[in-house]
């Protein structure tokens, strides 16, 4: 038994049908716990006051915005190399979710930034790279919708995703050169294993991040199921046309 078995649409539908309710329950539970704990049962920060609590939305959504693109990159590669249809549809399904996550990160960032920095928006490297990421998502989704032949659309968007990833990385470091930032350092540096927030803030944040991750998975699986049904409908209609 190999992992590629799940790349078969029918197998994917069967597996996700019983997996989804459990994942949904877990996602609701952890997002709810993380946010309620974070909003109501943590002390106010001595400098930032209760404004800091937007971190429980901002950081997880920013994390998922980037992870969604990484997932699209991997699934695009799988499609290009092994031509598993489910992989291409996973990438397609992830894009709008990633787009919304990016938007949430940008909006919550603006709301957080206003009392802290006195402005909703600044051309800070991090903010700017998120805006660029937002544009990449828009272009990717637009290309999917514009190309009628579905397999060709999958091919083209995969190539765009690969090329876009390189340029997104390039832009990320290019903007550093262009403007030094206001944005604070990362709150949970994974690479070093340390953290810059106190435990009281960290635990609800970790749960919220887990919840957003699960929510992302649930949404992507749901959307992929929809995409598979849509493709099936299309195939059936085409067969009917051919028969008549």
């Amino acid at each position, binding site marked *: 038994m190999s992992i590629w078995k799940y790349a078969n649409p029918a197998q994917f539908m069967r597996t996700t049908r019983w997996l989804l309710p459990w994942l949904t329950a877990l996602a609701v539970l952890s997002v709810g716990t993380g946010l309620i704990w974070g909003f109501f049962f943590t002390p106010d920060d001595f400098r930032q006051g209760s404004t800091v609590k937007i971190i429980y939305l901002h950081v997880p959504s920013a994390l998922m915005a980037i992870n969604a693109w990484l997932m699209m990159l991997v699934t695009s590669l799988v499609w290009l190399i092994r031509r598993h249809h489910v992989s291409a549809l996973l990438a397609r399904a992830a894009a709008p979710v990633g787009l919304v996550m990016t938007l949430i990160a940008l909006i919550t960032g603006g709301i957080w930034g206003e009392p802290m920095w006195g402005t909703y928006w600044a051309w800070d490297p991090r903010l700017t790279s998120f805006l*660029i990421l937002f544009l990449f998502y828009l*272009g990717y989704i*637009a290309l999917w919708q*514009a190309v009628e032949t579905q397999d*060709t659309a999958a091919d*083209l968007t995969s190539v765009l995703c690969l090329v876009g990833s390189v*340029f997104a990385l390039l832009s990320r470091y290019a903007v550093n*050169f262009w403007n030094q930032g206001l944005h604070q350092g990362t709150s949970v540096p994974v690479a070093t294993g340390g953290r810059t927030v106190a435990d009281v803030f960290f635990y609800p944040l970790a749960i919220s991040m887990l919840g957003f991750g699960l929510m992302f998975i649930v949404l992507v699986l749901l959307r992929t199921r929809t995409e598979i049904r849509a493709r099936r409908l299309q195939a059936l209609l085409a067969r009917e046309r051919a028969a008549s």
Partner: protein
Amino acid sequence: MIALLRRDLILAIRAGGGFGLGLAFFLILCVLVPFGVGPAPATLAKIAPGILWVGALLACLLSLDRIFQLDAEDGTLDLLATSPLPLEGITSVKALAHWLTTGLPLTLAAAPLGLLLNLPPQATPWLVAGLALGTPALSVIGTFGAALTVGLKRGGLLISLLVLPLYMPTLLFGAEAARRGAEGLNATTPLLLMAGITAGTIALMPFASAAALRMNLR
């Protein structure tokens, strides 16, 4: 390959709109901006590097959808794809032809248009050098966008959306170089970084463009 380049240049000259269109747009933009922001020389000098770079970029964008669209519509692209020329070579030549008809004239026109916008004289060499080094990347990346959208009826707007985020690093370094030049600083670093991006895109993008073209012909 040389035959293809020559043909593309002949067509650009004879069909009209090849050389002129981007250039005219660039001129219009540089004339409109002073009306928008006011004629104060200090303001213009401050924003001139950015306006000239953004203008060049938009002018470049304007002619992208013609790179493959015309050849695709009349069937030439199918015939070229079945010819002994490798598609990677075809996309490279197309990008070169686009640069010769768009990027090069824009680079040459930038210095006189800089006068119009009161660009500080010490910035002009940096601006022109930046455009000379940066516009090839714009053409090569644009060719990739054109290859992605070649089969689409209304590809023009989509190309802009796909290509603009890819133009970001080039624009950023190019405008930065011109701005540093305007302040009398040495702008070698951003220029070199941009040249690096240009070299990288020239080396690699034709492969991505050819792949996209192949997918679209299928």
